[in-house]
Every structure is written in structure tokens, then in C-alpha cells.
């Protein structure tokens, strides 16, 4: 099975000389289609750095990253934007949504960037909101949604373009236990129903309990990679 994400000998060094910090050290990693994985580790272990590499947001110092068989090193900024737009979905910890757009418009925005016609955009956005349990809240702006509802909208937006992988960085960090559990259950359901690949950067044990694969980073290296 061809991996969705393939990292080979990945290193990332910030700064130069004596002040340099090595955030990733020779990381080899493959994410397979349908994986529902957590990327865990203490603060400074390199979780976000690795997610940035996988998400085509940053380039490694050395090593190679390939998404869906496409090597990122050779791509320019525009091609990387295209890759993010079509193949990667993002869910961040907070400030996920554009505040002046409604829930539906936030989701439609990705399709708009892809050049989809307005009728298709509206239909798919409504369907996506229904899928994450936010039917009837299409016209609410982020400020009128709870934190959990905002994260659901972000999940719906991440999935709207059927990406190869969804990267979520601390998606439950600002949520209470019940809402966090609901969000993880939602992502898990989508993974089960649609086979969408998720990689979730977290140190929330509630999240780790629900994932099928657990990757642990320590000092920029993969210390543990287990499947359940």
C-alpha cells in the first residue's frame, strides 16, 4: 500500500552555530491511508515541527517528505499552496475560522479557492455541516458558535475537499472534556466511515485513547510507534 505521507531522514534545525536547535533528528515515518494516528510527545519534542513538514508549511533542513507520492522538495511556493489546498486538511487549536464569514461560508471558502461553482459549493458545505452535526447553524458566524462548534466547522472545512490527509494540531486543547470527546468521536467516525487519514498532534490522553496508531516523539526523534 502506497503511504499517504513518507518522511525519510528528516531533520530540522533552527538557528545557526552554537545557538542552533535541532527540532527533528533523522525522522523516518510513513502514514498509511486510513490511519488515525496521534503524534504525541512533551513540549519541544518536535510535534508541531513534524506536522509543519507533513503539511507542506515548512521545509526540512535535510531529508525528504512526500505527500501522496509527490516529493515536496521540488515544489515552489505556489505548487505547495496548491498541494495544501487539494490534498491536506488542517484543524488548528484555535482561531481556525475567518471571523467575518458564516460557518457555511468558511467551508465554502476552500472550495472557492479550488474554483468550484457556487451551487456545488453551497450544497457540499451544507452537507459537510450536517455531517458534523451543525445543521441549522449554516449562517452563524464563528463568534456565535461555541468552541466545540467552531472546531466542528474546522473539521468540516478540512474534509470538504476530500483531502489525502487531515492534520490536526492540538484540536482539543481549548475544549472541555465532553466537547473534546465529542470532537474526537466525530473525527474517528469520519475516519471509519470515509477512510479519511488523520494525524493528530496532541498530548491529550483523551485523544490518544481513541486512536489506532500512536507515534511518540522525544527530543526530535520517534521514540515509539505502535498500532492497536
Amino acid at each position, binding site marked *: 500500500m502506497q503511504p499517504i505521507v513518507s518522511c525519510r531522514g528528516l531533520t530540522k534545525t533552527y538557528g545557526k552555530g552554537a545557538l542552533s536547535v535541532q527540532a527533528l533528528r533523522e525522522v523516518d515515518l510513513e502514514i498509511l491511508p486510513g490511519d488515525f494516528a496521534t503524534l504525541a510527545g512533551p513540549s519541544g519534542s518536535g510535534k*508541531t515541527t513534524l506536522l*509543519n513538514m507533513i*503539511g507542506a*508549511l*515548512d521545509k526540512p533542513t535535510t531529508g525528504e517528505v512526500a505527500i501522496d507520492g509527490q516529493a515536496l522538495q521540488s515544489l515552489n*511556493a*505556489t505548487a505547495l*499552496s*496548491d*498541494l*495544501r*489546498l*487539494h490534498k*491536506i486538511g*488542517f484543524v*488548528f*487549536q*484555535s*482561531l*481556525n475560522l*475567518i*471571523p*467575518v*464569514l458564516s460557518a457555511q461560508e468558511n467551508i465554502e*471558502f*476552500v472550495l*472557492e*479557492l479550488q*474554483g468550484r*461553482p*457556487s451551487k456545488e459549493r453551497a450544497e457540499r458545505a451544507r452537507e459537510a455541516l450536517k455531517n458534523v452535526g451543525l445543521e441549522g447553524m449554516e449562517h452563524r458566524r464563528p463568534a456565535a458558535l461555541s468552541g466545540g462548534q467552531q472546531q466542528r466547522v474546522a473539521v468540516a*472545512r478540512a474534509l470538504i475537499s476530500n483531502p489525502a490527509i487531515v492534520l490536526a*494540531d*492540538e484540536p482539543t*486543547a481549548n475544549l472541555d472534556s465532553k466537547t473534546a470527546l465529542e470532537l474526537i468521536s466525530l473525527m474517528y467516525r469520519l475516519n471509519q466511515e470515509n477512510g479519511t487519514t488523520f494525524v493528530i498532534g496532541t498530548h491529550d490522553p483523551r485523544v490518544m485513547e481513541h486512536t489506532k496508531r500512536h507515534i511518540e516523539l522525544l527530543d526530535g526523534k520517534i521514540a515509539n510507534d505502535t498500532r492497536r
Partner: protein
Amino acid sequence: MIDTLKTFGSLAWRNLWRNSRRTFITLIVVSVGLWSILFFNSFMIAWTQASKQATLSVLIGSGQIHAPGYMDDPSIDRLMQPPDAALTKALNAPDITAWATRLQLPGVVVSEYKTLPITIVGVDPALERKVSSIPGKVVKGRYLKDVSDDGIILGLNLAKRLKTGLGRRVILMSQNVEGKLAEQSFDVVGLFDADKNTEDFYAFTGRTAEQAFVGLKNQIAEIVIVTPDTVNVDTTVKNLQAAAPKLDVKSWRKLSLFLAASDTFMQGFIYVWLGVVFALMAIGIVNTQLMTVFERTQEFGLLRALGMKSRLVLLLVAMESAVMIGVGVLLGIVMAAATIWWLSSGVDLSAFAAALEMFQGGQVLYLKYQPQAFIQFSILIWLLGIIVALWPARRAAKSNPVDAMRRLT
């Protein structure tokens, strides 16, 4: 692309009101700036036209015809014959509203108390009323009755300096055709009120009366013309020159260099004003847009992370500026139109009459809409505003999604 522009336009409009106070400040800067440009442009044009009209209507007209050399040496030796058939036909063309012949000669006026240098102007009163404002400026006595009227009209200030007045007699002296000194007494039949220079140095009598005074038959010194449009007088000058190739035809621009220079200066001044106002506006626009971009760094990073290309981020921010400046421009147009409408019935500057006389200005200015200037300056301000706003837009476009993610997580 149209869909994208529609979405971005809507997004830009909503983003404008995220910080309404800042938007209002920028709108005020743009609208007041444009208002000042449009208003001052109308004011300057009204001022220039009033000054030009006031000056040209006294004696100069839109243009004049002389014998060659008369302008350098306006003596009795450099006169010309009345217009022949070809020139008369050209003078009666539709682009000339009125014309009149004059005999202008240097001389002196003598009263019991004083002798002063003047220019003696012999006119045809019926024609003169169509080309000059002097007949309407007679405040005491009467204007000349006909071309043979041998009364004299003096300026109020000249009469005062001569210690003479209405009904008194003065003696005029000038060189006659034989090169000898001619002198004759004239009754003061009227006094006119004009600018100080005209009052002091010009005295008017009937043309044939002056011709008889210096021994001339029918020679004249000049033909003055009035055209409906003082801006495009060059074609008329060319036509007259073609009809009278041996004569010297000049437009008012050549006859009154000061007026022509002030006309050009006024046109240039509005662009200087535009530059000053725009510099202030640019500082306001760039400042507020930079603050907006700085505040929304995370949002731009998010957009970039979602796959929005940097050129689209630039387009989005540029559209926000375009919408904001566009609204400011519309407000400025409305404010300027309202101000000009309010002042279109006339701005009375008679309180500044002395200063206006010095600058040859009219005492009542009539402001008019200048549609071309409204369009030209509004588009210019809008485009220049968008261009300066590209700087903050570029900063937004360069937002690094990694930095944004770092801030978000």
C-alpha cells in the same frame, strides 16, 4: 475569477467594519482630502475666470490687432487703417462675439493743479459697450454718446489727483501727425470706477474727436476682439492673422503676460495641492492598513495554510483598500458637489476688495461643477490610494503560515 472577485469583494466589505473606528478615520482622511481637491479646483477655476474676466473686459479683450511695432512703440507713427473687407469678414465670423476699433495714443492731461501722463483712448461708444466694461463703470456723469463725442471720461483716482471733477475742463496734450505738440481742452463728462491702474492711466473720448485732435483722418491704433471662450482663442488668432497677414494679431496671453502666468500658475497649483493632500492621505492609508495587516497576521497565515496563494492574499487586501478608498472617494465627491452647489450662487469676496484688486480678482466668484475634474481627480486618488496600499498588502501576502501556526498552537 468573477466568482472569486465577488467573494473577495464581499469579504473585503465585511473586513472593513471589523474596526469601524479605524475605517471611519480613513474614510474621513480620503473624503476630506478629495473634497479639498475638488472644492479648491472649482474655487481656483472660478477665481482664475473671474480675474481673467475682470481684467480682459476692461481693455484687453480676448485679443487685439495692431500695426507691426505698435506694441513696442505705441506712437502716432505706428497706426493702421480701419479693417479692409477681408479682415472685416474675419472679424464678423461666428467665433468672434464682438469687436471694436480704438485710437490709443500717449499724452498728458493738464488741470489747474497738475500735469499727469496718460493714454488717450478714442473709442466708438456703441461698439465699446460690447467689448469693454468701462462704459458700465461710469459712476458719475455719463459715458460717451457717439464716436464724435468730444467729452472726456476720467478715472476717479485720476480726477482726484488732478483735483478736477465732473463738469470741469482739462487740457490734453499729445503729438500730432506732423510731430508737433497738439493740445485741446476737453469737458469732463464722466468719471469711472475701475482698478487703480486703469483709473490712473486711461482717459476716454470719441474716436473721431481724438483723430481730429491729432490731425488723423481715419487711422486707428488697435482692433479689440471678444470671443466666447478665452481658452481656445488661438484658432481665432490664426484666422485673423491669415486675413490680415501684414498686421500683428495677438491673443490675450501675449498681451497680458502676468494674467497668462497667473492662469498657468493656478492650473499648476491644484496639482501641487493634490500632491500635498495625497501625501497626507497616503500616510493615513498606509498606517491604518499596516495596522490592519499586523493585527490579522494569524488570519493571513491561516489563509496561506489553507492553500490560498500569496497573490490572492495580496488581491484580498488590495480589494479591501480599494473598497475603503472607493467609499471615501464617493463621500468626497458628494461633499464637494454639495459645497459647490451651496456656493454656486456666488461667493462674495467684496470684503477683500483691495487685495482682490491687487491680484486682479473678481469680487464675486461663481463656483461651477467641473465634471472632468471630478472624474479625473477621483480616479487618480482612488488609483494612487490603491497603489500605496499595495505595500501593506504585500506584507500580508508574505505572511508565513508556519509563524501563524506557531501563534495559533
